[in-house]
């Protein structure tokens, strides 16, 4: 099967998906899937492309959500300008935080992002005048074109298509990145920073670029989330979301485009399917999660590679 066939087929399937069922609850799940796909893809830029771990990604998601909520609340900007502003604000935070912390790599970087994330979380909780504190902001307007112009998106299907559009656009951008000189510089930086530098790659700038893009896209995700759920609380910045996103990226397959999307699907679908199990739900989920990690360390996408026989040589047998 060549790309030329599979990609249009998958796109058509994604477009047709909502018509498979009239059940609006499934539509809701599809929206969540797309939303998480967008977020996981953005985190994948950090984890998969620049090779660092960020524990602060949910904070940027939250910043986007709050920006959209506050703009909507105070200025009636509930449309495209609001989303763009959410991206800009989240990206600006990403720039400042990235600028400060990307000089440091590895676990130390992860903890720096955790620190920044927690500070943002704490401020969100305490700056009641702006954010309404722990109770969050509810009754956020639904998404419109420019906001306040009467066109408002209320159905889950509508959101599904809007977010699907974002996911497709961003996935394509990631694909283009990987087939460009800039993308090669990303990968070189991830694989061996000193060597990359000796080849003329400005390692810091590459990382910063990746980080800002990732945080801005997370901001878009946050804004869409806020409009769709109409509520945002500081909880969206909690470690729970960070962990969920990391799970999606790695279980799906980091550094790939289909991986995070599949990871998001599995996350949403599995938790839903296990709902019937009651208290056992999360135990089974955790067991499946660890089993998948242990048996498919390269993520679900590596299964595909295994089946099709595209072998990656890989040390084995030593003690």
């Amino acid at each position, binding site marked *: 099967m060549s790309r030329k066939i599979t990609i249009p087929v998958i796109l058509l399937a994604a477009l047709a998906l909502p018509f498979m069922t009239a059940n609006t609850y499934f539509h809701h799940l599809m929206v969540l899937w797309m939303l998480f796909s967008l977020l996981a893809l953005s985190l994948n830029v950090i984890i998969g492309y620049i090779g660092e771990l960020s524990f602060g990604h949910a904070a940027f998601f939250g910043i986007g959500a709050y920006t959209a909520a506050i703009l909507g609340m105070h200025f009636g900007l509930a449309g495209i300008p609001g989303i763009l502003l959410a991206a800009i604000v989240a990206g600006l935070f990403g720039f400042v935080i990235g600028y400060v912390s990307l000089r440091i790599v590895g676990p130390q970087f992860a903890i720096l992002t955790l620190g920044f994330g927690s500070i943002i979380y704490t401020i969100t909780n305490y700056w009641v005048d702006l954010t309404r504190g722990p109770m969050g902001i509810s009754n956020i307007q639904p998404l419109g074109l420019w906001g306040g112009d009467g066109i408002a998106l209320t159905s889950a299907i509508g959101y599904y298509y809007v977010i699907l559009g974002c996911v497709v656009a961003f996935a394509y951008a990631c694909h283009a990145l990987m087939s460009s000189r800039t993308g090669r510089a990303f990968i070189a930086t991830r694989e061996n920073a000193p060597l990359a530098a000796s080849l003329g790659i400005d390692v810091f700038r590459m990382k910063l670029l990746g980080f800002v893009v990732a945080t801005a896209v997370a901001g878009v995700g946050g804004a869409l989330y806020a409009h769709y759920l109409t509520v945002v609380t500081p909880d969206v910045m909690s470690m729970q979301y960070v962990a969920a996103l990391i799970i999606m990226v790695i279980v799906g397959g980091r550094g790939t485009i289909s991986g995070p999307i599949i990871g998001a699907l599995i996350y949403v679908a599995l938790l839903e399917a296990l709902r019937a199990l009651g208290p056992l739900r999360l135990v089974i989920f955790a067991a499946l999660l660890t089993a998948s990690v242990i048996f498919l360390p390269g993520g679900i996408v590596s299964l595909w590679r295994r089946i099709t026989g595209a072998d990656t040589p890989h*040390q084995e047998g*030593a*003690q």
Partner: protein
Amino acid sequence: MLEVSDIVVRYGRREVIHGLSLKVAEGDVVTLVGSNGAGKTTTLKTISGMLKPVSGSISFDGERIDKMDPHEIIAHGVVQIPEGRLLFPDMTVGEHLELGAVRARSGGRSYGERIDWIHEMFPILLERKEQKAGTLSGGQQQMLAIARGLMANPRCLMLDEPSLGLAPIMVDQLEDTIKSLNEAGMTILLVEQRVDLALRLASRGYVLETGSIALEEDAKVLLADPRVKTAYLGI
């Protein structure tokens, strides 16, 4: 003493050693010659237990060692000095020597004697006893790697490109060291890109080509063999 028979080794699905056999007699110096990627390092790693053969057997002193873990093999007296040194950058020279002895074979020189012997052989290691290995120069690191291996009190020492990165004067010294180790009764399996040097030191040599033995001869004969001359010595 060391007998490798018909081993097959794979990395993942790729088979890189296809039924290789070799023998090293007690007290001998045997060298393995082959171009880049022929499988020399792979062979040594298999003997030392870092890789497991898919089939075939390896025995040392009549005992099967191919199912053992590296630390057990070391305890039997088979020690590999790895290509690329593999030191512990933040640990001191002294600690390396101590660690070399964690699975030392019993018998032979005592711990203290070995330390003195090594310091005599490489005085710089005594001088830099407290320095961290990561800050040693390339050549100093190579000496430390050999010293660490010797601390295990080996009977059969496998050296993988020991001259790597050594200045000519140090290579001389290495040559002398290997000679004296052998004279002291140590069996040596040597992999060395300086084929001339290796064949000078060895009594027998195996020529390895893409994972199997192409030639097995007396070292002197190989040194004179025109095929070896053109393929490996560049003359």
